[in-house]
């Protein structure tokens, strides 16, 4: 039973991270029907910036949770900046173009950003300081769920709530929903569609950065390549839940997290990745719209 709980919380933690990253994919796809291949790299950049900030802080004498928060905030700022720039340079010029063009551009940006970080920093796996303290009150359940997991879960939960409030209760959120449903109409009623799209990218990138910081301090290391794998998995989660649907991304993330955790725990950890990709393929073949998505009919 304990093992089950351990896997359960492990999967929940994993799933939360996937959900955070998946939200970026799903929001962008929902609004401009583009698979932002470079999103994983934004996540990675978030983690890297956090690493650098944490490193500088540690060396200059700061310590403790303040580093984590500082690193997190700066990482979010930078990731958002990268997301914004990414959209402006690589996607906006291609907004009327046939679907293949922005897709290739996205792949190109993904490759570019990976190598940019690789060259600017290093190809090594860099150690990330474990910034999340061990809470005393977690001691009794430490074998099932540790402090880092708790922090991740709480952070993710709060972030989701904030995001939901933003989308549902604010004017900006309404504008985002409108643009997603009908971009031309939104433009006609006076919504600055360009800005809304930029905002979508910024929010998605911020979420990914939060995920990046949490994961980096949880796992303890970063590398220029982590974006790709996390990206594909998060994308799987987004598709699983129904791409374009925000609750879908969260649901997909959790389902994927649990599926991976239980599969690795009860079957075998070696084939974990096969399982993920297999799941992706099966979902796309059987139900491309995902769990919460709607299949769209093409007008003839």
């Amino acid at each position: 039973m304990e093992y089950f709980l351990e896997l359960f919380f492990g999967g929940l933690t994993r799933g939360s991270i996937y959900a955070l990253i998946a939200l970026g994919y799903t929001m962008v796809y929902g609004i401009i029907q583009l698979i932002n291949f470079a999103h994983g790299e934004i996540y990675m950049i978030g983690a890297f910036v956090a690493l650098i900030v944490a490193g500088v802080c540690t060396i200059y004498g700061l310590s403790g949770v303040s580093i984590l928060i500082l690193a997190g905030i700066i990482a979010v700022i930078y990731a958002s900046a990268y997301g914004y720039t990414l959209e402006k340079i690589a996607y906006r010029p291609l907004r009327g173009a046939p679907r293949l063009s922005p897709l290739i551009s996205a792949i190109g940006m993904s490759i570019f950003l990976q190598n940019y970080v690789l060259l600017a920093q290093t190809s090594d796996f860099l150690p990330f300081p474990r910034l999340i303290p061990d809470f005393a009150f977690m001691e009794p359940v430490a074998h099932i769920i540790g402090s880092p997991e708790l922090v991740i879960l709480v952070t993710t939960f709060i972030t989701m709530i904030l995001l939901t409030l933003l989308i549902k209760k604010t004017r900006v959120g309404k504008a985002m929903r409108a643009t997603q449903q009908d971009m031309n109409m939104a433009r006609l009623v006076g919504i600055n569609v360009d800005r809304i799209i930029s905002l979508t990218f910024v929010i998605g990138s911020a979420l990914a950065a939060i995920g990046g910081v949490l994961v980096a301090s949880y796992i303890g290391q970063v590398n220029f390549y982590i974006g790709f794998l996390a990206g594909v998995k998060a994308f799987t989660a987004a598709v699983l839940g129904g791409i374009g649907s925000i609750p879908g991304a969260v649901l997909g993330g959790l389902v994927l997290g649990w599926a991976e955790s239980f599969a690795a725990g009860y079957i075998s950890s070696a084939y974990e990745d096969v399982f993920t990709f297999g799941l992706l393929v099966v979902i796309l073949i059987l139900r491309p719209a995902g769990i919460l998505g709607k299949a769209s009919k093409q007008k003839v």
Partner: protein
Amino acid sequence: MTDMLQNFKKSILVSIWFVFLTFPLMVVRVNTMNQVVVWRWTNLVWVAIASFVLSYLWRYMLARQQVRKKVADEGGETRSKTQLLLEDMSFRYKAMGIILLAALVFPLVFDTYQSTIMISALIYVVLGLGLNITVGLAGLLDLGYVAFFGVGAYSYALLNHHFDLGFWISLPIGGFLGCLFGVLLGFPILRLRGDYLAIVTLGFGMIFKVVMENWDSLSFGPSGIANIDKPGFFGMDLNLANSTIYIYYIMIGMVIFTILVTMRLRNSRIGRAWIAMREDEIACVAMGIDIARTKLSAYALGAFWAGMVGVLFASKTTFINPASFTFMESAIILSIVVLGGMGSILGVIIGAFFLILLPEYMRAFSEYRMLAFGAAMVLMMIFRPQGIISNLRQTYEYKGSKEKINND
């Protein structure tokens, strides 16, 4: 004057933005072992200057594009002189003749190392031409193409390892197996379109690599398979230098074979069906074309080349492991097709040479190869989405003469 001032201000702002953006990654380097922070201020200067200059270039290119669009809308001539030259058939034949000649004497003039590089380039040419059928002609986005390449390579490696089968026997087997996998993979995804198709094929590609890495009893896992036989020369084994030359000529043969077959296919009934399917699937099916069959044949044909050249790859490197068959490879091959110009054979060849040979010959910049690669993909899509060689008009000369006869 104010215009210039405006542009200047804009570029300054852009420059400042990029300095800010790249600051943590380009300027700061944290050395946790020695607990030092390295501040690379020169990088900051480089970024500032480069982004300032590039923003001017960017604006200029965009403006030029606008002008081009206007001219095109008004029906004017938008093709550049180089393009018109490339379209001229007699020029192309002469160019191809020269290239062929140069290709044939290459290994005799240059050393083994150069030949090996050339062989790599030629392998990518065949891969590009193969994917060109699936993506360029039929419009089926395949991001997992490298899996078929791997199927060919592994099939030869395993056949050679377990049954001692030679290169020449394995060559068609590799092609056939590639074909088979193409059909198997194509079958379940017939109904998918666009983005979904891309992601599923990506998934397939990743599954192949991960399975090869983990199914040790089949593929020997991450350590791969070694001591694969090189192609035998009438039963003899050649030394490294000669066998490289041998493989080089085999590749030339394969490339020529691929080009001929691809050209024949493109100008045939099935080729037109592929192109029609790419343009408008619904209209295509309404005109009586069996979409399922057409798609499967595109996958199968494309995969065939990958499988076949995979065999050669294995024999050239004599050692294969799953690390050679990553998504990055698929992305590179896809770029070759898209940047060369979808459906254009000459474009794919130029693209392959450019992408593979340029970094090889510019050793100083080889670190930046992938960086330039990614940037090139983005820039091409923005400024020249139709590729190096854009779509040529398929003229039917015989129709002209027939017309004369009919009018008499």
